[in-house]
């Protein structure tokens, strides 16, 4: 086990965005965080990354608690719907990411720029990109960082079918090279295509965790037909 989150809680006044959230992340896996809009996926990622203060809970790595200020050594969080450094070019943003965070493209690893079809965009300012183009640039930024775990919030949002497949292929190649990915995805069909295991989140609570087979068994125990797909499993468990 690479990371173990236990009892994560986040409240906004009387509203509880996360309640006693616990799950684990295994090395080299692609873990999917599935949940409807407003279920607390982004809040969970931000609390994990330490960019939003949690009200309770711990994250353990190698049996040691990792305080929020030290989490940047283990994981990098790529938020959704941001346009960082809008006046700067994509080329500069990728250079900056590699230089500032100390990450470089491994000599033998995949080259993310052609893989995400960013070559034509390299000299465009980030602020001028479309949603899908920006999403690919953000993913490239995330993949260039050196931390062993990447949390990506809605990595397929705004992408067309072809781009979704390209991005999924790129993510798989990085996972195969040893990077652990934790992806927040609200489209269950996209999640089913790429993830090895899932954490189901609903109303700020974890409703299930495991491989599709493990989740099906869990759903079957609650009366869902055994051959049900991930969508039906999700509906049964949430």
């Amino acid at each position, binding site marked *: 086990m690479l990371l173990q989150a236990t009892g994560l809680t986040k409240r906004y006044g009387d509203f509880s965005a996360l309640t006693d959230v616990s799950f684990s992340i295994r090395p080299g896996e692609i873990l999917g965080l599935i949940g409807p809009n407003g279920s607390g996926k982004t809040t969970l990622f931000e609390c994990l990354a330490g960019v*939003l203060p949690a009200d309770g809970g711990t994250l353990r790595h190698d049996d040691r608690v990792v305080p929020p200020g030290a989490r940047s050594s283990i994981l990098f969080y*790529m938020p959704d719907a941001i346009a960082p450094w809008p006046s700067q070019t994509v080329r500069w943003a990728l250079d900056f990411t590699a230089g500032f965070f100390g990450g470089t493209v491994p000599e033998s690893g995949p080259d993310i720029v052609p893989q995400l079809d960013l070559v034509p965009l390299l000299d465009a300012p980030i602020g001028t990109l479309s949603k899908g183009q920006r999403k690919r640039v953000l993913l490239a930024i995330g993949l260039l960082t050196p931390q062993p775990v990447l949390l990506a919030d809605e990595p397929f949002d705004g992408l067309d079918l072809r781009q979704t497949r390209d991005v999924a292929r790129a993510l798989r190649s990085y996972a195969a090279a040893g990077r652990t990915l934790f992806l927040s995805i609200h489209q269950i069909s996209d999640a089913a295509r790429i993830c090895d295991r899932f954490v189901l989140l609903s109303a700020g609570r974890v409703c299930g965790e495991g491989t599709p087979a493990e989740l099906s068994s869990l759903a079957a125990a609650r009366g869902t037909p055994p051959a049900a797909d991930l969508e039906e499993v999700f509906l049964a468990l949430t």
Partner: protein
Amino acid sequence: MRSRRSAFVWLLDKERRELAASKSWWVMLLAMGPLVGVSFISAVRTYAEASGLNGTSAGVGEAFSPLVGVWAPTFSACELAAAFLLPFVGIRLVSGDRQSGALKLELQHPMPAFVRLGAKAMVLLSAWIVASLAPLIAVVLWRSYGGAIYLPELATVAAGHLLNAGLTVALAASTAAITEHPSTAAILTLTVTVGTWIVNFIAAVQGGVWERVAGYTPTAMVGEFQHGLVRLDVVSIAAALIASGLVVAAIWLRLGMPVRRRAYESIALGALTAATLFACTFITPSWDFSENRMNSFARADEEALEQIHAPLSIEAHLAPEDPRRVDLERRALSKLRRVMPQAQVRYVSATSIGIFEQTSQHYGEIWYDLGGKRTMNRATTAEGVLEAIYDLAGVKPPVETDEIFRGHPLAVAPKGAAAVFYGIWPALVVAGAFFVRRRRA
């Protein structure tokens, strides 16, 4: 995509690029030329008239110093820019990261928040230095007209404005870090600026402790530097405020910290800053860098006063808005405090303007107490004050040995200044902005 540069150098480069991409920075640069130009041109014209240009009485400006006649008004454009333009540049640089989401990415580098903010502050101060090229051009023009330059006083004026810019940067950074939106930060920053003006106004009306506080506002600080005076207490207080503002900004940029903890840390820092400021008010050294020693008594008088060790207290029955009180402060007491920092000065008045106190028997009296011996006069000049002190101390007034400052009259028109500040400067700024934009595109 490989680099051996340190993370801080990357961040510095990023802040520099963000500054170059900021419209507010280019607007500030654009405005600096005409602002400095209008001040410089009118100052040179007035200086020339006082020096006898166009048939005005030659010799009136004989004791004229470029410090007061040219540099103070010319550099006053910097004060305007620091109050109304620089805050927006600072807020843009700090808030921009939060608005775009870049802050959430950058915060995931383990670099300490204060170092992170240090990069922004360094870039903002260098931005100010670039903007200060406009008054530097005025200096070059003045020299080309044959004007005299006394470097220590000119450097003092520039240093005062740099310190003022530092205060603005710290204020803008802290408000931008605390608030969610840049417009709120702008309102807060301007509120603080206007607040210091209100303190100055109340001080002029009420006197007392307000007068003491007003002595440390940016306006008062810049005013002293513009007269060639550097007070260590003022510099220390400004430095403490700058450091405090930047630390507050650093505290609030740590989005991962609970708001309550950030608030407690800010309150603790506020208390520490208040204690530091209070301690700084007891610092007494000061230096007069003006060529004509406008902030000092004659050297012989200073030496004579330094020999008087008995405790001196002065009680002046003058209202805060009475022009005689202003004269007394400017011509005598401010100079006296520099030589005798332990001298106690107390003002007594029942009203703020003093008009209705004129009939009062004791109004206008200035009482001097030196080691228990008392005397009174009504003179508000340096000579009157010194005479009373020497009389009480039983010291013979020294013979003045200082060379009389003859001034540097210069009766020339500000030739070419309009073309430089209203034409060439704006054209260069627009061309620079266009070039930078094209390079990015």
